[in-house]
């Protein structure tokens, strides 16, 4: 039983890595590069801080603004003489976690709303989807910043706020898919068997839209990392001394002339992480055979 409705190959034992979708993903060069990038970044963020000789909060004013590769400071130091490498990896833990949790939250909300709106249709569906349209009319950054400014930000709060502004796109995708499946024979059969509405939505429809959901979820991680970075860059996201890739860039602009590495290092990390998730998303789209207006 696979989560994605692909005809299982009848050949011999059904190992998951022989699955057509997995095989196709493994042939997708960009997706593999993305996967490798994420594994390297993830490993660096998890194990890096244990291996480095510096603590991310250790202040050494004599070593302020050390450029990269001075002594044991691989990426240099910041205006307080803190080791940038240690801060980058600790920040990565937060930024990646926020991105991942925001993806989980928004995927759950978006899928639930999308499935209900798509299957129920009628007034319920219309009200839900117009609500989604209305939220999508606000530039998401404005909405995000306004919410972050109203609510005292903590990493958990930022995660929720990002999810609140990101679930709508997933809802839109799921709704369209479910609406196209609603009158298919297998759904009619389930209805005639007397299955409850909830059972049809959860057991019949949801597994069949798993592909688009997985793809959208992967791209949402990328988006969430970008959003966190921007909000924290402006000072309304993750608050120091807890480091995040975004708030590491917070003071970088004023030191641009003399200490450009303060801007370059965290920015490269963000771009790498976001690129990686976009590559993986692209590979998943091909592997799971998800149509989109782009391809």
């Amino acid at each position, binding site marked *: 039983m696979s989560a994605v409705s692909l005809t299982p190959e009848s050949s011999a034992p059904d190992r998951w890595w022989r699955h057509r979708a997995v095989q196709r993903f493994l042939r997708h060069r960009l997706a593999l590069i993305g996967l490798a990038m994420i594994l390297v970044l993830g490993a660096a963020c998890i194990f890096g801080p244990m291996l480095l000789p510096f603590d991310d909060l250790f202040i050494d004013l004599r070593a302020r603004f050390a450029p990269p590769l001075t002594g044991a400071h691989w990426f240099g130091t910041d205006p307080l003489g803190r080791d940038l490498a240690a801060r980058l990896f600790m920040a990565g833990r937060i930024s990646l976690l926020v991105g991942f949790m925001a993806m989980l939250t928004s995927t759950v909300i978006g899928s639930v709303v999308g499935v209900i709106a798509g299957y129920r249709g009628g007034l319920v569906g219309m009200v839900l989807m117009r609500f989604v349209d*209305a939220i999508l009319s*606000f530039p998401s*950054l404005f909405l995000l910043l*306004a919410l972050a400014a109203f609510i005292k930000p903590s990493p958990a709060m930022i995660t929720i706020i990002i999810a609140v502004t990101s679930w709508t796109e997933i809802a839109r995708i799921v709704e369209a898919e479910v609406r196209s499946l609603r009158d298919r024979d297998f759904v009619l059969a389930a209805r005639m068997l007397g299955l409850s509405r909830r059972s049809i939505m959860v057991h019949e429809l949801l597994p069949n839209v798993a592909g688009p959901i997985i793809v959208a979820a992967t791209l949402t991680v990328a988006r969430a990392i970008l959003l966190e970075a921007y909000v924290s860059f402006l000072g309304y996201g993750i608050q120091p001394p807890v480091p995040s890739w975004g708030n590491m860039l917070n003071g970088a602009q004023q030191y641009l002339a003399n200490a450009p590495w303060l801007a370059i290092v965290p920015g490269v990390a963000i771009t790498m992480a976001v690129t990686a998730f976009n590559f993986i998303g692209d590979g998943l789209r091909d592997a799971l055979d998800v149509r989109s207006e782009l391809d």
Partner: protein
Amino acid sequence: MVHYLGGRLWQSIVLLLLVSVIGFALLHLAPGGPLSQFTLTPGMTQAQMTHLAAQMGLDRPLPIQYLDWLWHLLQGDWGRSYRDNRPVAQVIFGHLGATLLLMVSGMAISLSIGVYVGIKSAINRGSFFDYMTTVGSMIALSIPTFWFGLIAIYLFSVKLGWLPAGNMYTIGNGSLLDYARHLILPASVLGLVDVATWSRYMRTATLEVIHQDFVRTARAKGLSHGRILRRHVIGNALLPMVTLAGMQLPAMLGGALVAETVFTWPGMGRLFRDSLGYSDYPVVMGLLMFSAILVLVGSLVTDLLAAVIDPRIRLG
């Protein structure tokens, strides 16, 4: 056409009402609600707060307050800025021009490059150029706009000293050339980040048109490759771009706002950031509502434009 126009207009009005409900809810979500500015006043007693609430009509039921707020909103009374007590609508309109200038310039850049790249990679499908632009566009989509802006400032202002690092004009100069020099960097950053979106859409649209029957007919008639492309393919592939421009509006506005904060461009994004810093909630709310209205009106206009150009939309 009239039928289509009516339906589309009705849809926009419903959306606008929903947008206003969300805006109103946000206003009341703000800590302390609309009264928050007074909680900071020293010596403010609870009795005075209650009195003030009654005076401002905040003790009425929420639906009544909403209707009242909406009524004033429709009349252009968006409240007053906490910072300088100027009417919110006036403050916002003062910053609208700069944002529109930046948005339009950025869009001109991204659209022209994106359309060119999209067509070229579609007719050379599977080539090295196609592959590189596909990969390149995905990386470009992944670069945070604000960081790209920082790097551009570092390279072109700090290191090379070619272009100014921020603002819209030099105080005391303000010639057209001076404006242009200030515009180049933010507009390019904004435009280049968006190239990817357009080139990918354009590539898909071109590929779709190339496989249509009328293109085969044109080829069968013996028309040259370039002529088919110019006369039959490009025009048809550009059609869906009009609708897409409407769909991209929130993202483009968002991008302009981000670029503004990095380049200290005196537009709505800059105003939004400053207003957040001052806890100037009326302006923040006004900007939220105004940008949503801008997006709705923009997508309405692009949809109507698409319907005028393409009869399939209004009839189908």
